[in-house]
């Protein structure tokens, strides 16, 4: 028995070890990805998937006998399409040329040496450093073409297959390994990439997009990259057995994708919407690699063949996988056949021979790695920026730069909870919080205050200036009392009678277990304590935190959202329909906001639909007419959210980067220095 008892004790200890292993947290950031897919529906048969415990989902069968989520559709012949559709030519953009033109318009920069000798201790020096070092090479001799760059990763990539792309790291390699037909620039404008696309035409009615591909792009195994690959990828993404959930969201807005020949692909939209271009940005996988294995293993991940494809994927991008050690590093090598075709250079030669992603989870070690030259870049936190990168040992090998990101953080109030269902209470929270202490003490004065979901400089932001909230405890108390939260029976905690029951104002604020976030939440708790509100701060492991939000089992939370490539993507956070299945975890519902999102989707020519929306949602009551532009509609949403304060908007978190002194060509966008086009492709290393 003694032996059994000791074994049980061992079991208990192991269980404790597993349960205790939960910490850490990261940003909740909205991804830019969006796409859709479908499958041919000839002779399709409706059927349902109904295994035990699974909700029924309507699926169809495509011509290959595979499941699809797309309703049957027979596309017209190209000749018919050409006769009936009025095409409008759209620009195809050479992103590097575009960047070069943009930089040429900037003020004359300092020379590199002067910029590299500066200490980045303020906005002026930051501007000088970026102005000098964001440049492209003046001649080929300046570039170290044999350079290998080592970039820092906080965690490993999950996949090399772009249809499963779901994290920042996946995104980093996805754009290097795979060619995208559509991309977006530093202003987040979508366009086809000249490296892949020959021409792009949109139909005047907004229902079709026709893309002709370049004939000189091949996969890394030498097979031509064709329109059939694009259509196949669409069908694959829309196969319900393929677990491509993140990439499917948005792609499923498309009705059909048809490859009419090797180079011509036409996208069929369900409706003529202003947001349609966003849905074209899905990745492409090689048909010749997956078409035979898909039926046997629709997960594309389990069979030995697919595992091998994960390790050594056939790529269409500028790089291929040279080496991968999971949890440690991934090394990509420049693909000569990407930029050379039949011995001639047909695309820009990527600046680095090798790109190495080094996984270093610990932030302190990552900084040491930057200082020692082990990595060439590092995204830092505010504390590292202020106190650990000001000395000579940092500037010996590196410099640093910061740029504004459209990544806002806020206290998010669960509008369905008994505490925060009243706008006045939410407003009181915003007045009760000491914004100045957060900005100047906890965040070292490095981040700018936030007042809404769109950055004031963004095209979709409201043109009505909004003052950031300042702490005003009197006003907060006034609002709380107006909302019925008083001190009763000599208590020192406010309470309210709800259904005849006295409810004390005692709630829990959940957040991910990141020290900076916990400090901000603790500051709120201290502030609220002064006006008779008890707030318990509960730091949680990231996944647990997300699950509580998805389940709506929280009173309030601290979190952040990054910008998508189109403001329409924020509908998933704010519309009533996104309460179930979307990211509107706080249960915010505003009829006008719902209507404005609908209105903003409509193309200008859709007069009838616009009038219908204005009428249905009574948008005229808030001064919105059917002819409102997209910018006006989103601006109005911004205003309504400011007035309702479902979030207490706090700050935009800037990007803080350390760069090795040999690097040039980094330019910050609202999504940081890399996550746009050309992004990383404009970064290069000098010969010195």
């Amino acid at each position, binding site marked *: 028995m003694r*032996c*059994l008892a000791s*074994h049980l004790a*061992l*079991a208990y200890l*192991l*269980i404790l070890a*597993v349960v205790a*292993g*939960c910490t850490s947290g990261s940003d909740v950031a*909205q*991804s*830019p*990805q969006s796409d859709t897919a479908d499958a041919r529906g000839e002779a399709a048969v409706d059927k349902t*998937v109904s*295994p035990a415990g*699974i*909700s*029924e*989902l309507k699926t169809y069968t495509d011509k290959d006998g595979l499941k699809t989520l797309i309703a049957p559709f027979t596309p017209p012949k190209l000749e018919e399409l050409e006769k009936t559709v009025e095409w409008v030519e759209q620009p195809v953009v050479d992103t590097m040329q575009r960047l070069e033109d943009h930089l040429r318009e900037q003020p004359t920069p300092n020379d590199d040496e002067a910029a590299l000798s500066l200490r980045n201790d303020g906005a002026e020096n930051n501007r000088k450093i970026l102005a000098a070092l964001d440049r492209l090479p003046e001649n080929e001799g300046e570039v170290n073409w044999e350079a290998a760059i080592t970039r820092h990763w906080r*965690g490993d990539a*999950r996949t090399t297959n772009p249809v*499963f792309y*779901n*994290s920042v790291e996946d995104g980093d390699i996805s754009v290097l390994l795979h060619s995208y037909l559509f991309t977006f620039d530093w202003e987040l404008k979508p366009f086809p990439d000249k490296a892949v696309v020959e021409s792009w035409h949109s139909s005047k009615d907004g229902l079709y997009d026709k893309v002709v591909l370049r004939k000189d792009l091949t996969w890394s195994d030498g097979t031509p990259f064709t329109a059939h690959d694009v259509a196949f990828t669409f069908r694959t993404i829309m196969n*319900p*057995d393929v*677990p491509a*959930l*993140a990439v499917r*969201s948005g792609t499923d*807005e498309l009705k059909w994708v048809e490859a009419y020949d090797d180079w011509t692909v036409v996208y069929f939209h369900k409706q003529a919407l202003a947001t349609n271009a966003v849905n074209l940005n899905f990745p492409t996988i090689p048909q010749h690699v997956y078409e035979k294995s898909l039926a046997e293993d629709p*997960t594309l991940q389990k069979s030995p063949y*697919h*595992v091998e494809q994960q390790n050594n994927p056939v790529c269409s991008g500028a790089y291929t996988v040279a080496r991968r*050690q*999971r*949890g*440690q590093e991934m090394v990509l090598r420049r693909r000569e056949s990407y930029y050379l075709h039949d011995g001639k250079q047909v695309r820009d030669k990527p600046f680095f021979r090798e790109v*190495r992603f*080094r996984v*270093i*989870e*610990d932030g302190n*070690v990552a900084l*040491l*790695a930057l*200082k*020692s030259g*082990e990595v060439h870049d590092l995204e830092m936190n505010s504390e590292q920026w202020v106190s650990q990168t000001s000395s000579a*040992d940092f500037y010996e090998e590196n410099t640093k730069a910061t740029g504004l990101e459209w990544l806002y953080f806020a206290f998010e109030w669960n509008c369905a909870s008994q505490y925060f269902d009243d706008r006045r209470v939410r407003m009181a929270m915003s007045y009760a919080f000491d914004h100045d202490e957060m900005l100047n003490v906890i965040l070292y004065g490095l981040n700018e205050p936030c007042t809404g979901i769109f950055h004031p400089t963004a095209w979709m932001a409201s043109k009505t200036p909004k003052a950031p909230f300042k702490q005003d405890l009197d006003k907060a108390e006034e609002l709380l009392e107006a909302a019925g939260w008083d001190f009763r029976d000599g208590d020192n905690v406010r309470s309210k009678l709800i259904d005849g029951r006295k409810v004390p104002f005692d709630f829990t604020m959940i957040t991910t277990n990141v020290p900076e976030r916990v400090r901000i939440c603790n500051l709120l708790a201290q502030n609220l304590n002064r006006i008779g509100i008890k707030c318990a701060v509960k730091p949680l*492991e*990231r*996944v647990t935190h*997300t*699950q509580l939000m998805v389940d709506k089992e929280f009173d309030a939370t601290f979190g952040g959202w990054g910008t998508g490539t189109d403001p329409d*993507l924020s509908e*998933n956070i704010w519309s009533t329909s996104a309460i179930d*299945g*979307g990211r509107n975890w706080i249960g915010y519902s505003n009829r006008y906001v719902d209507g404005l999102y609908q209105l903003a989707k409509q193309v200008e020519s859709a007069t009838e639909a616009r009038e219908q929306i204005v009428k249905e949602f009574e948008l005229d009551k808030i001064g919105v007419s059917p002819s409102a532009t997209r910018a006006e509609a989103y601006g109005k949403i911004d205003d309504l959210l400011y007035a309702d304060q479902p979030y207490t908007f706090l700050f935009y978190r800037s990007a803080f980067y350390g760069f090795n002194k040999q690097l040039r060509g980094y330019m910050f966008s609202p999504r940081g220095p890399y996550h746009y086009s050309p992004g990383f492709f404009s970064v290069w290393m000098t010969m010195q």
Partner: protein
Amino acid sequence: MASYLIRRLLIGSLTLLLITMLIYALIRSMPGDPSMIDTEGLTRRISQEDYDLARKAYGLDKTWYLAYFEWLADVARFDFGNSFYYKLPVGDVISQRIGPTLLLSVTSLVLAYLLSIPLGLYSTARSGRTDERLLSTGLYVLYSMPAFVMALLLQSFFAVRLRDTWLGLPLLGMHSQGYDLMSPWEQTLDLFSHMVLPVFCFTYGALAYESRFIRSNMQEVIRQDYIRTARAKGVGPIRVLWHHAFRNTLIPFVTLIGLTLPALLSGAVILEQIFTWPGMGSLMFQSIGTRDYPVIMGLVLLFSIIALSGQLLADILYTVVDPRVTYS
């Protein structure tokens, strides 16, 4: 002895079953699951049906006990499933980590014992004198210094400040770039240089603890009558310590070794993260964070077997070091 072993193995199997079942139940009841992580990058709404399909893809549509018995049946066929995160067979994922983990832990264990025994004996022999007090103070200082702080200090000094000198050591990882192109001798040197700092950090705490452990046990033993008798008979001090006293401190020492065995494979989460060492500790930690159930279960199974074997081994070793112990 045979019946004892059979009984222990049966109880061990039962314990193993219990551990794996409880852990499976616990991880399935943890908030969040792999399908939720898969949908973190969503920009649009997702229907309940889509969520359900994603859950089905991971086998989460089954109740935990059904899924557990399926897992058990697969394990009986030596099929440990595929990692949700790495998309590779669990056996491959774990086996990639065993080598690096053992490299550190075995080296550290051997070093710790090789050094702690003479240090413990020396402390006993020189008890109360200045050199012993200095040594003890030094060991206490080491013991009280958290390994992660020591690791960062050493990295900062040897890998950053001295990086261009002959004393410079690698900051992290197991190999330098271009390792594959090196000669076997260069590869050995490269690996050795990468091991120096992590092995030191793994070892010094155990060294301090074990040498103090030996010393305190020896202090008790050398007061025994038979030691006094041995001395009275004119046996030299070294022989008294080594042959008469130390052998009698082996039983608690063997217990310690038995308890250490599981740690050989379980790795150390923080140190592995700091040195970016691809070990089992960080794999376990990461698997929990990503809700990689097959890997968690594979690791739990492995750790449990090692832990139970360690205890059994320690019990058997008692009979070797102490003839009075029998399991008849």
